[in-house]
Structure formats: structure tokens, C-alpha cells
């Protein structure tokens, strides 16, 4: 063991270097190898590098990615992002703990099989609640289906290997093209199962069809989706497709060469188990010609700039990207425009930073360009950490070349020769795609020395973020790249003057860079013509929560909340009332349905107490408790606080404690007063954006839903969401089916066939299973 550790660490150090800045990559590599950070390994690092014990401990305990204890064979990641939260992620988490017999603070089960952890957001919000075990992602998990998820995972582990190559059948006659999305949501919803099934059937039935893997199709809660394109026919869309439905889809459009293959109808239940989708079984086919279909409605009103060629483009195909105009903007910039002309174009377009604060992008570029230095850097901020936001992930996964093109243009404009892609380690697919794209670009002469034959040289590397929301703040991000704890620093100095390694540094977020090439190709005016007076162009939102059609949308600035919710999103499911939208994640706020006509732009959102944030948009319905939402976000921010300044470190914690008090029915009116004042002083007194915006969810819910706070103080949670304030009961509707009694994990319900059942409130642990499985909705909360 000892020798092995020395060997392994030495190998890693050799590869990553001995400098202090290598600390995070070294730790990541050690953890990749051992699954955790053995103490001996850390000691060895200190012995052989410039990294001190103080630093290695400081770093490895700051970033959530790092573990100091060995873990089980498989890690169960329960997503507790916003969309998952409102759909019962905590009940799912509790259910896993129960099913694995975890006591107190235990995280690993007795057999060392599973370790459970909560993750801030897996970015699969449209199929919430989401759980990831190993490399398999399960969507729509409920506390009741947890045992099935576990056994399915174990089955999958021992059974079917996945993967396979794309089959191409030799033939002169290509009958058509079938497109399938392979973004993270699609894959989590079972698109790889559908893909395999599709390929299998095509091979067996010898149908000659092009299968094209495209990136995110945007309409994430209708996935897996198949698009069938056939000459002479208008394209057809099949949504929420399952592997066992693939056969029929294919046979609707294409004639097989082997007549017998149609008769065979195998049910590939394994693939179906890839995800427990509650979607109905019938085929959902929509023609592209009809405008009243969900797909058409979803796409209507959207403008694709960052997401240009959505659903068409294959993420890693540089030739296709080029065919569709890719890298022509870069070429124009490098060969025709001067850097200051590029900056002027961006300035004139009115583009503002899409990371949240909305700082004018052209001005930022100008500042970095003006800074005098022998060395400058460009950083792409892909540390998207908002629970309930997945725009950057989608853009990175689906349009890697577009993002890269934007970065190179920016580097040219500001005069930087080195760049960094900062991407969360929680986004494995995005990392793979970007890595692939970078190496293609290097081969194609788009990165490196003398790009496109010009004098301009630029290198771009990836830095994997180790899990700290605060690193989305630019100064904290720089600190973490430099091998420090992710502490934001006071500005000035701004990164534009003194950034990475003390040099002028441009930091923009993924979405901002994604807009650059479009602006160059289509002119500043075209971009400027979209949007409102002070907010130009489009904004990408991750639409999720209580909405019929969630997904990634790109809409013009100034669009109203109502239009997004009702038209693009198709309203609230299950006949429930629209209550509010939470916009901007933990930095944003809740805007009530009564203000749904608020246009979405930087200014209007600040006016109503929210902010653009990075673009998470969670729709809430009448069953969502607003105090619980406020508490949810505070739980997140106080967990993510770097812990440096007093207001954020202690202030957010105290606010959370007051909210906990209120949601457990112990709050007083005086608490509301303290909460409001503390929120105001935390907002004013914190150093960085995280602390300054953390009180927003509290302040907006207090402003628009004060009555709900007061109801809690009077001992009543109006929506029945706050676990400590509700009891479960069975009404006369009960038909005595005993299902609830059979599944109750705490023996709170006795099985009495054909009789009215009863819940022993003393024993009840409020896991919600009975309510979920009751066939006649006889279980109610009070």
C-alpha cells in the first residue's frame, strides 16, 4: 500500500508539476485513482512538491469534490437542485438512506457497496428528481421507486454492457435520416438506450437510414426525441420515445429489407429501466407542419443565437460546424478586422455579460485591451453552479466549437495568448466534448501558433473546477486556478487589470462567448435590434419545475414571464395554478404570477428584487411553499459560502436558522423582523456577489408572499410542504387495497383488507410513499 501510494503520487506529480498551482489537478488525479484522498498520499505530495501541508489541507477541505474518507463501490448522487427539490428530492434522499440502512451521519452502507451524497445540481432539471449512480442517471425517481432503482442498478452492473458503434449499412439507397439528441438530459432520459435499439433494429432490418447524433435538442422534458427526416415527407418528431417503441417508429416510415423482422417484437425492458419515466406509453408523434404541436409551440418565439442550428448540428463535427458558417467569424476577425474593430463591434451590439451581473461585454474587453502587460489571459467561466441551471452545460456539450470560436475572437481582441476553460468537474460530458473539440482545433490550426496563417497565436487549456459555487465569482475562480481556496477578493483591482497571476485577465461566461461569432457574422446591428433598450439580444434559460415543456430555451430579451410559461412552456401540468417563477437561482428571487407580465431584462428583474443570474428559471405552482423555497436557497448559499466575511458566513446561517424555525412552526413575528433586517444587512455588508445576492430569495418571498410566512407563524403551512408542520391521514376514499400498508417503511399503517386504513402519526416518518402509491388519492396531508 505504502509503496503503491508513493509510486502513484510521484507519477501524478511528474505529470502535473510541482508548482503550487498544480494542487487541484494533483488532488483530482489522486482521487480519481483512490476514490478518495489517502492521508499518506497527501503527505507524499507535500514532501515532493512546493505544496505545503497548510495549503493541501486548506484546498482539499474547501472544494466539495474532495473526500478524505474511502467511499463505497458506487456513489449515489441525489440531485437536490431546485427543480429536483420542488419535486421531492429530499424525500428521495431520505428513502435512499432508509433503504441502505444508514444511521445518523453515515454516508456509506455496511457492505461498502454504496455511498450517498447530495449534489447541488446535475443539470438534468427537466426530468427531476434525478439520481446518478455510477455512470447511470435515473430520472423521475420517487421515494417509492428507490428500491427498484437500487436493484436495477445492481442488475445493470452485472448485466448488459452499454455502448456500441454507429452502424452504417452498405447501400446505394439512403432512405432518410433519423436524428437523436445526445445531451446529458437526453442520455439521462434513456436516449442512449433508444440509440442502441435504433441501431440494432436498423442493422437487423437492413434499413438504410443515416443516424445522426445531435447535441441538446432543447426540449428537454420531451426527450428522448427522434426526428425522422425522409425525402418527400415533412419531418416528424417523436417525443418521450422508449426503446420498445423505436421499432414501430422506424416501421412507420421505412420498409425493412427483411420482411420477418417486423414480426419479431422484443421488449427490451432493460433499456426502459435506464430511466423510470412516467410518460404514457402511446406514441407521441408530431409533424413539423402543424403549429399547435408541443414541439412547434416550444420552438416558437425562440431566437437561436447561442443555440444556433439546434437539433441539427453534431457536437464534435467540425466540418459540419464550418459548413454552417463556423469559424468564418474568427477568420473575418483575424484577417480583416483589427482588435479594436472587433471590440467596437461587440460594444455596438450591446452584449452584456450573461453570467449574471450583466456588465457590458465590449467595455470589459476594452479594459483588458487597454491594460499594458507582457502577458494577458482569457478565461471562459463554465463553473455553472446554480441549482436549476444547465445552460452552460448544454452549450458546452452541444456547441463546443462555437464557444471556442468566441474565446479565440476575444483573445484576439484583447491581445491574450493564453486561455483557460474553467469547467465544473460535475459536467463529465461537457469536459469530454470540449477536450475533443480543443484537440480537433489544435490539429486544424485554429489554436496554437499562427492561427489561420496569421500572426496571432493562442493556446487554450481546460481547468476542472473542483466543486465550489463561489468560484463562479471571477476573483474566486482566479484564486482557485492559482491553487488557492476559492476566496473572492475585493475589487479593485479588477481582473481586467490584475487577474490571473497578477496579469490582465478577461473573464466571460460560456453563454457570452457563444454569442460572439453570431454577432461578428450578422453585424452588431442585428444583435442590437433584438431585445429591449438596455438589454440586447437573447438570453438562454433553463426552464424547469412545474411546467409542461421544460428545457433549454433561447428567447429575446424583454420577453414576458407569461409568454415563457404559458406559450413556450405550455403552462402548468396537472391543472394546477401558476404561482410564481424563481429566476436567477440562489441570487435571484421569486416573482409572483400576478407579475407575470414583467419583461425579462436586466433592469426589470432588479426592479422587482430578482436578478437575471445565469438563467435558471423554475416554475412553481400552487402546491409549492414559498417559505420552503426561500429556505431551500438559503440552505444552498450558506453551504456554498466561502466562509470568509462575517455577513455571509454567519449571516446566511442565522437567516437559515430563522427559516428553519419558521418552517417547523416555531417562528414568531419578531423572527420575521429579524430575518428581514438581517437579510438587508447581509445584502449590503457582504464582500462578493454570493453574499450580496444570497438574501434575494428571502427578500422577494417576504415581499410577495408575506402571508405565507405569517401562516407558518400561526402554525399552518398552506401548501402542506413543510414536513414538520403536517400530518398524513387517510380519508374515507380508502378502498382497503393495503398497498400503503405493504409499502410503509415504518409500520405506521396496519393492513386491513377492504377496510378503511389508518395512519399512526406517532410512527409515521412522513416519507410520502403512501400518498404516492394510493390508487384513489385517499392519503392526504393536513
Amino acid at each position, binding site marked *: 500500500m505504502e509503496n503503491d501510494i508513493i509510486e502513484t503520487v510521484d507519477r501524478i506529480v511528474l505529470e502535473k508539476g510541482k508548482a503550487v498551482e498544480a494542487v487541484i489537478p494533483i488532488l483530482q488525479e489522486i482521487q480519481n485513482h483512490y476514490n478518495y484522498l489517502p*492521508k499518506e498520499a*497527501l*503527505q507524499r505530495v507535500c514532501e515532493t512538491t512546493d505544496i*505545503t*501541508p*497548510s*495549503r*493541501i*489541507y*486548506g484546498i482539499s*477541505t*474547501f472544494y466539495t469534490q474532495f473526500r478524505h474518507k474511502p467511499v463505497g463501490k458506487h456513489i449515489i448522487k441525489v440531485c437536490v437542485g431546485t427543480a429536483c427539490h420542488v419535486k421531492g428530492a429530499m424525500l428521495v434522499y431520505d428513502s435512499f438512506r432508509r433503504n441502505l440502512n444508514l444511521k445518523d451521519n453515515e454516508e456509506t452502507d455496511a457492505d461498502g457497496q454504496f455511498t450517498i451524497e447530495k449534489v447541488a445540481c446535475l443539470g438534468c432539471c427537466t426530468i427531476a428528481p434525478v439520481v446518478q449512480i455510477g455512470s447511470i442517471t435515473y430520472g423521475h425517481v420517487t421515494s417509492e421507486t428507490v428500491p427498484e432503482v437500487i436493484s436495477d442498478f445492481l442488475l445493470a452492473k452485472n448485466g448488459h454492457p452499454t455502448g456500441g458503434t454507429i452502424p452504417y449499412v452498405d447501400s446505394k439507397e439512403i432512405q432518410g435520416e433519423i436524428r437523436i439528441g445526445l445531451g446529458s438530459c437526453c442520455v439521462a432520459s434513456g436516449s442512449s438506450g433508444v440509440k442502441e435499439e435504433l441501431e440494432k433494429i436498423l442493422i437487423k432490418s437492413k434499413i438504410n437510414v443515416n443516424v445522426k447524433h445531435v447535441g441538446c435538442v432543447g426540449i428537454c422534458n420531451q426527450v428522448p426525441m427522434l426526428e425522422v427526416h425522409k425525402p418527400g415527407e415533412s419531418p416528424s418528431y417523436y417525443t418521450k420515445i422508449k426503446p420498445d417503441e423505436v421499432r414501430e417508429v422506424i416501421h412507420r416510415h421505412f420498409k425493412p429489407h427483411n420482411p420477418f423482422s417486423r414480426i419479431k417484437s422484443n421488449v427490451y425492458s432493460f433499456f426502459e429501466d435506464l430511466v423510470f419515466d412516467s410518460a404514457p406509453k402511446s406514441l407521441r408523434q408530431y409533424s413539423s407542419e402543424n403549429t399547435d404541436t408541443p414541439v412547434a409551440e416550444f420552438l416558437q418565439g425562440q431566437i437561436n443565437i447561442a443555440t444556433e442550428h439546434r437539433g441539427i448540428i453534431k457536437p464534435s463535427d467540425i466540418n459540419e460546424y464550418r459548413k454552417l458558417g463556423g469559424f468564418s467569424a474568427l477568420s473575418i476577425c483575424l484577417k480583416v478586422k483589427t482588435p479594436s474593430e472587433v471590440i467596437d463591434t461587440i460594444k455596438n451590439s450591446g452584449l452584456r455579460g450573461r453570467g449574471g451581473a450583466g456588465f457590458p461585454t465590449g467595455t470589459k474587453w476594452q479594459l483588458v485591451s487597454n491594460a499594458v502587460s507582457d502577458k494577458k489571459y482569457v478565461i471562459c467561466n463554465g463553473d455553472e453552479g446554480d441549482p436549476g441551471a444547465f445552460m452552460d452545460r448544454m452549450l458546452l456539450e452541444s456547441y463546443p466549437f462555437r464557444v471556442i470560436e468566441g474565446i479565440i475572437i476575444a483573445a484576439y481582441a484583447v491581445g491574450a495568448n493564453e486561455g483557460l476553460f474553467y469547467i465544473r468537474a460535475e459536467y463529465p460530458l461537457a469536459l469530454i466534448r470540449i477536450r475533443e473539440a480543443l484537440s480537433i482545433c489544435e490539429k486544424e490550426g485554429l489554436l496554437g501558433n499562427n492561427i489561420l496563417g496569421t500572426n496571432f497565436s493562442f493556446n487554450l487549456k481546460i481547468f476542472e473546477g473542483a466543486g*465550489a459555487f463561489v468560484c463562479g465569482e471571477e476573483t474566486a475562480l482566479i484564486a482557485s486556478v492559482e491553487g488557492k*481556496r476559492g*476566496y473572492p*477578493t*475585493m475589487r*479593485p483591482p479588477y481582473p481586467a487589470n490584475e487577474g490571473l497571476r497578477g496579469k490582465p485577465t478577461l473573464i466571460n461566461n460560456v453563454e457570452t462567448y457563444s454569442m460572439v461569432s453570431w454577432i461578428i457574422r450578422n453585424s452588431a446591428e442585428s444583435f442590437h435590434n433584438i431585445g429591449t433598450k438596455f438589454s440586447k439580444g437573447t438570453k438562454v434559460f433553463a426552464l424547469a419545475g412545474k411546467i409542461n415543456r421544460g428545457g433549454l430555451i433561447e428567447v429575446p430579451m424583454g420577453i414576458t414571464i407569461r409568454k415563457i410559461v404559458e406559450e413556450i412552456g405550455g403552462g402548468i401540468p396537472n391543472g394546477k395554478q401558476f404561482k410564481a417563477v424563481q429566476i436567477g437561482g440562489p441570487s435571484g428571487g421569486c416573482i409572483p404570477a400576478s407579475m407575470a407580465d414583467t419583461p425579462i431584462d436586466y433592469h426589470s428583474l432588479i426592479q422587482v428584487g430578482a436578478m437575471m443570474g445565469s438563467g435558471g428559471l423554475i416554475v412553481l405552482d400552487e402546491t409549492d411553499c414559498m417559505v420552503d423555497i426561500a429556505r431551500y436557497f438559503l440552505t444552498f448559499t*450558506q*453551504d*456554498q*459560502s*466561502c*466562509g*470568509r*466575511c*462575517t*455577513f455571509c*458566513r*454567519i*449571516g*446566511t*446561517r*442565522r437567516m437559515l*436558522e*430563522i427559516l428553519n*424555525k419558521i418552517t417547523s412552526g416555531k417562528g414568531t413575528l419578531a423572527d420575521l423582523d*429579524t430575518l428581514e433586517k*438581517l437579510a438587508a*444587512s447581509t445584502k*449590503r*455588508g457582504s*464582500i462578493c456577489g454570493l453574499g450580496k445576492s444570497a438574501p434575494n430569495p428571502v427578500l422577494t418571498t417576504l415581499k410577495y408572499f408575506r402571508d405565507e410566512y405569517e401562516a407558518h407563524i400561526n402554525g399552518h403551512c398552506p401548501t402542506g410542504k413543510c414536513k414538520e408542520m403536517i400530518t398524513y391521514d387517510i380519508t374515507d376514499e380508502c378502498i382497503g387495497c393495503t398497498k400503503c400498508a405493504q409499502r410503509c417503511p415504518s409500520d405506521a399503517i396496519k393492513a386491513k383488507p377492504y377496510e378503511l386504513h389508518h395512519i399512526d402519526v406517532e410512527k409515521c416518518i412522513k416519507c410520502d410513499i403512501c400518498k404516492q402509491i394510493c390508487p384513489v388519492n385517499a392519503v392526504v396531508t393536513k
Partner: protein
Amino acid sequence: MIHLKINNQAITVPAGTSVLNAAKSIGIDIPTMCYLQGNSNHPSCMVCIVKNAKSGVLFPSCAMPVEQEMDIITNDDDVRNARKDALELLLSDHVGDCEAPCRTACPAFMDIPQMNRLIAQGKHLDALRVVKEEIALPFILGHICSAPCEKVCRRKQVDNPVSICLLKRFTAFNDSKNQLAFLPEKNQATNKKIAIIGAGLSGLACAFYLLKLGHNCVIFDSNSEAGGTLLQLSENELPKEVLKVEVDLIKAYGAEFRLNTTINPEIIKNEIKNSFNAIVFATGDITKSNLNDFGYSVSKTGLVADSDTYALDGTGLFACGSALHPLKMAVKAVAQGKEAAFSVNKFLGGMPVSNRYDRFNSKFGLLQPSEIDEYLKESVADDVITPKGGRLIGFTAEEAMLEAKRCMHCDCRKPDTCKLRLYADEYKIDRKKYSLGERKTLKKHFQHETVVYEPEKCIRCGLCIEITSKNRELTGLTYIGRGFDVRVDIPFNRELSEALTQTAKDCVDACPTGAISLKESNAKTERR
């Protein structure tokens, strides 16, 4: 050079100066905890917050460089409230007592833990000096005090409280055997003369502190002996010899006793008023005296005096002890005599004596079970010592030292230099405003030779981390974790002695609170 305004005052300072230092250069002191000249100032405490007058934005002045045309406000309500909030938040996360529970329970606010430590070290005279800072009559009280201090002694959670009262008696008794008994040095003579009516506990105590402050005292009493109600106690309760020892000491200190003298309104009016600068009524229960006839304002319980100053009016008349309200606790009478003396001193134009009772005091209540072990690190395991010679005789020196070692050092080692306490006083903070949630569990790192580290007193400023790292300590200190749970600790679970091999003293000096402090912190400021 940068031109800016601070509190409307125009100044010019070199570029790169922080707002904090710019303010300092014109004599405006901004409170700060985490800032230390010579270190990278990474703001964390937020106590140095100031306001940009133009934008209304608050920011920490220590880390903000001056800019042209800045307009800064350092002390309006807005700014003060923000600082107050920061301090209240810091204190809500602070587990530790400024003063030990015994001391705050003592009506005379005697520094009990310090007395205990000195006795344990065999420095008995120094111990007595500490006692007499607050208690004029320790030998007497050592016999009759009801010892509220022992009722709150944390040692009770382990076994039995420390025998504080007997230890106090020991200091006085031990000294009484000396040829020259201890009397504290007096302030410069003032030539002011005070009449004290009544030679009971409060009168004697009042005289003691007035003498100490440099005044002259004459004590009147109608009895033939000094002692007031003490004279009624049995030999078992208070041996006459003990009373005599302490009365003689006060005589030796310079008090003039006029016994067998019954004071009436005429004497006051015709004799005393004219020849004395102030009069203190320490006459005891007014139902048992003739005070009703003096024409002063009287309530059901006694003379009516200002509750802060003990003044009957503005003409130099004062009262203390049971004359105001019959007292059951002897120590209260002694405490009031002292307080009245300070008040008289102020009336006579002397330097005000700092009133330690009013200082901010952080306290956290009972120890949790695991914390008892932490506290025992500073103590010994033995249960209470019973004086071999019986309770009346009290401790021998050896017994006293053993008993004193049982004290668990509940008080803070930096009660006068802790900035948290300093600013908590200045900003009149509400200690409990944000005391929500469970308090953190206390730990004491006691293994280092000279230094103690108490993490729950830490404000996470990181100065010590920087100092250890700059000085290339092998392990040094580090932040562990983040957010609310972040703490300063030693990497690889090493010991404090490995982390602070050469920087211990520097860290103690840099630490703005009592989190890192010297084990031996006997140097206490004396009451002036």
C-alpha cells in the same frame, strides 16, 4: 497623490493607501479586527466597514485603496449599525466567557480565577492584592460570605465547586501572620475629607477605597466598637479576632474612628457639613436607626438614593449598604461600600474609576459533557479538599494550593485586549440578538508549552495562518472546511506544538480575540 474627503474633511494621501489608513492619518480611528499592518489584508471581520457617501455602498475600509474624489463617511448611524450587526453576528458564533461565571456572580466582582491561579502558584500575597482590588474585608467575608460564586462554579459539573470562600479567607489569614500586613498603595493625597456614618461592613469598605484613592476618612459610630451588625455574630460564625484584624488594618491605612458618637441632624448641619467634603450614610437598616429624623427622602426600605451614584442629592450626601435596602448578603454590603467610594471620588473631582461591572461579557452557560474534559485539561482531577484543621480554621498553604489548582480557568486570557469585547462595549451590542441554532462545542488545545488555542473564540481572520506560513512553520495552521463550519486547525491532525514552533508569540499578539493566548497571562490591568 489622491484627494478625497473623509467625514467631510478634505485630505491628500499617496495612491495605494487604504481608506482605513487614510482615516487614521487624520486621527479618525476605524475599528478593525482582522487587519494587521504588514499582512495581506483580506477583509473578513467587516467591522471596519465605512460608507461611500455618493453611492451609499458599504465596504471594508482596510482593503479599499483610496480613489480620487472619494467621499467617505466613517461613523453615521448607517455605518455604526452595520458594524454592530457584524459584531453581533461574530458574537453569535463565539463560545467563551469573558469573565468566569464565579466572578460575574460575585456582587463585588472579585477576580476569583486570577486569585486561584496565584494561590496555586504559591503567590499568596499577589493573590491577596487581586482580592483587595474588589473586596476590602476578605478575612471577615471569608467567614460569613454566602459565596454565590461557588453556586455557579463550573467545577460543580465535575464534582464539587472550588472552595472559593475559604481560599479568599486563606489569602487574608496568611497575610495577617506577617509583621507588616498588606495594604495597597494609595493614590496621591487629595486633602479631601469624607465623613462615613456607620462602621459596619459597607462603611468600612467605603472607607478602605476612599483611603486608597487618596482621601481622608472619619468613621462615626454610636457603638463603642466598630463592626455594626457583625458584632452580633457568635464566635463560631465570626471570631472577634478576625473582626479586629481587619478593623485594625483600616485604622492602619489611615481611617480615623469616632466611636460612641451618635449622629443627629444638628451635628450634620452644624459640624460635619462644614468640615467635610462629603458624607456617606452607612448606618444600616433605617428602622433600627434615627435616620428617619434627618429629613432626607425615605422609602419603605430606606434612604432614597440614585441607583447608579448612591447620591442622595447633588450636595455631597451619599448612602450605601442596608441604609438603602436591608441586605442579607454581607458581600453586597461590602460591594456597595466600594461603589459608593468610587462615586464620592468622582463627585470630589477625582479621576473616574472604570466600572468593570458594566463591561460587555460574553457567556455561554453550562458545559456540555464533552466540554468538561476540555476544561479539565487546565485543572486537576482531585475532588474538593477539606481543611484538616476544620472549616473554622481553614486551609493551610499546602491545602490552599491544591484546592486552587482545581479551578478550571473559565475566564478569558485576554479580557482587556480582546477586540471583540472592546468593540462590543463600544457598540453596545446585544449579545443574544442572533443566538439561534445550537452553539458549537468548545475545545481547548492545551498541549503547547506556552500557548492555548480555543477555536470557538476564533473569528476566522486567518492572521495566524499567514504568520505561520510566512515563517515557514513545518505544519503551520490552515483553514479546514468552508462556510459556516470553516475553522482554523493544524494540518494532518498534528499538535499545536508542531504548528507553532517559533511563531507562538507572534500569533498571540496578532490574534484579535482570546482564541490564541498565552497560558500564563497574569498581567492584569489594575483599577485606577
